[in-house]
């Protein structure tokens, strides 16, 4: 999945869960603080990201640096998707060998 698409999905998810209508500044980023999440709604945001992006977070998410802003969240999801795809390729190779 392209990072631009992911960024749009993350922004869409944050707006939906927070009930806001924020947009990214041109060539910029948006801190998640702007959405006014409390701990429960932030968790709801995480669950929504899992479903909308088709990924499963692991304990790397516990480092909050990864979920500081829209772009950092998109980058984290991108890396999880890449790791997942690499794992799948490795699995196919193992089956063929």
């Amino acid at each position: 999945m392209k990072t631009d698409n992911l960024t749009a999905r993350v922004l869409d998810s944050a707006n939906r869960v927070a009930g806001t209508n924020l947009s990214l500044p041109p060539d910029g980023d948006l801190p998640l603080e702007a959405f006014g999440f409390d701990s429960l709604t932030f968790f709801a945001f995480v669950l929504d990201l899992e479903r909308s992006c088709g990924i499963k977070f692991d304990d790397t998410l516990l480092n909050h640096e990864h979920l500081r802003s829209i772009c950092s969240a998109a980058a984290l999801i991108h890396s999880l998707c890449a790791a997942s795809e690499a794992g799948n390729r490795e699995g196919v190779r193992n089956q063929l060998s």
Partner: protein
Amino acid sequence: MSDLILGNDWVGQVHQAEGERFGVGPADRATIVGALARHARAIPDAAFLTDTTNGAPALAFAAAHREVQCRVAWLLQLGLSRGDRVGILGRNSIDFVLAVLATLEAGGVAVPLSPADPATRIASHVEFTEARFLLFDAETEAVAATCRTIERACSFNEIAMPVTASPAGIAPPRPTDAALIFFTSGTTGAPKAVVQSHCAVVQNAFSLATHHRIRTGVRLLCVLPLHHVNGLEFTIFAALLGGGHTIIERGFEPLRFWKTVRDCDIHIVSVVPNLLRLLAQCPGLRGGQPLPLHYAVSAAAPLSTATAQQVQSRLGLRIVQGYGLSEVTNFSCLMPAEMQRDDYERWMFYGRRPSVGPSLPGQEIAIWRDSGPAGHEVEGEIVIRGHCVMSGYLHNAAATTEAFRDGWFHTGDLGYSLPDASGRGFFHVCGRQREVAKRSGEIVSLLELDEILASLSGVADAASVAFANTWVDEEIAAVIVRQPNSTVTEQDVADHCRSVLPFSAVPKSIEFVDEIPRTASGKIRRHALAQRFAGIREQLFRETTARRGASKPVPGREKLTSSNA
């Protein structure tokens, strides 16, 4: 538990309550603060409290005892006399705990207050309890200033300053003296103030410390509010009595939970069912490494079999479910902490609902049916008697009399018991007679909310409703009948409720109808009304930051899934 911890205060004492004997209980001199003094001498450097928000090292027992004595001196200098009530207002912190302990040590009665309540409600609680003093944290200073009936309000920082007065010469409290007053929805009607004696408080802590084998080096995580019985009397007092170490969090942070469990090497955590369900929804956050956590204690609302199974299968975590109320000083029943797998699964997964276990020592529990105790497998009202039962409701003799009948405290909850191989009863909670909602473990009185709704100008009739909710177990709604020509709006109702109630008790959905459905005897058909709100079961409501008083629905899980498919 070692003799070191129990000392001589616990040997062979028997408590008399309502003419009945309930086995070993606390002696005359046993108090929670007495345990702190003993630990300060015997295990001075053992860790007692850690606050995760300030990064400071753990407060050891000896240091905690010194800090308490400092605050005692302050309270005595202020003129605190035996039996004076002291309101304690603040978020979870070590300072909150020290303020409570100092109040008890100085002979006062601690009244924990919720910072989530509106200022008017806090002030009314302070006035109702006739509190002379109010201790508060930095974040509640403005609210404290509105409590005009008190003699003096002091910040937690202020009472931590050294004073010249000496606390020497304070006579220890008697076991039947009041120690704590908690506000609760009560078994009927509007909120009530539950008076707990030193005897009840220390017996509850003793039972819990024994049950969970809390001793030096055992670490508990406190994520529930300290102004509730579970947070204060289990995670703090039971740990204190056993010589354990409590790590205090401001609240439950789903994303930080597992990290805190690992970093602080937590063995026991006390939570409510909806928090367990949330954790089970995102099992990846747990990580693959083995956890130090022995189990999670769940209480305050019934746990479903599905949640218990998900927590086991997705998180690899056992649940020790319990049952209790403020009126019985926290826990009355608890599942055994250590069970064979087959026994655990039998009691948690294969019955109608997970068991809350047998009664704790010092308490007797029965199922009341047709004016008397019933046998196993018969459904009826849960009744309790013994050391931990409250002294009564403050300033409410009628409610106290109503709650105590035939020597038993009537909980208003429905349940049944099933025998184990030895014939011991394992209790199961299956409903309630009380007209309350349980939102994220917090009890909300629907009768109080009915009265508040009906008091709004332009409202002819009103009913509050508890409806099932994915995020907080039960959420609150309201159904309103307008007076003729009334223009009262949804926002008017929300604002009115928010002015006197915490966000948790404010209706999140409000509907206007022509008539409130009632039974022939005039009781509101709340169950029927709840069906109106089945469509918003999956919604998460949060308090809007823009305008305190309104709530905003967060899209539900199913809705989110379909919109992003």
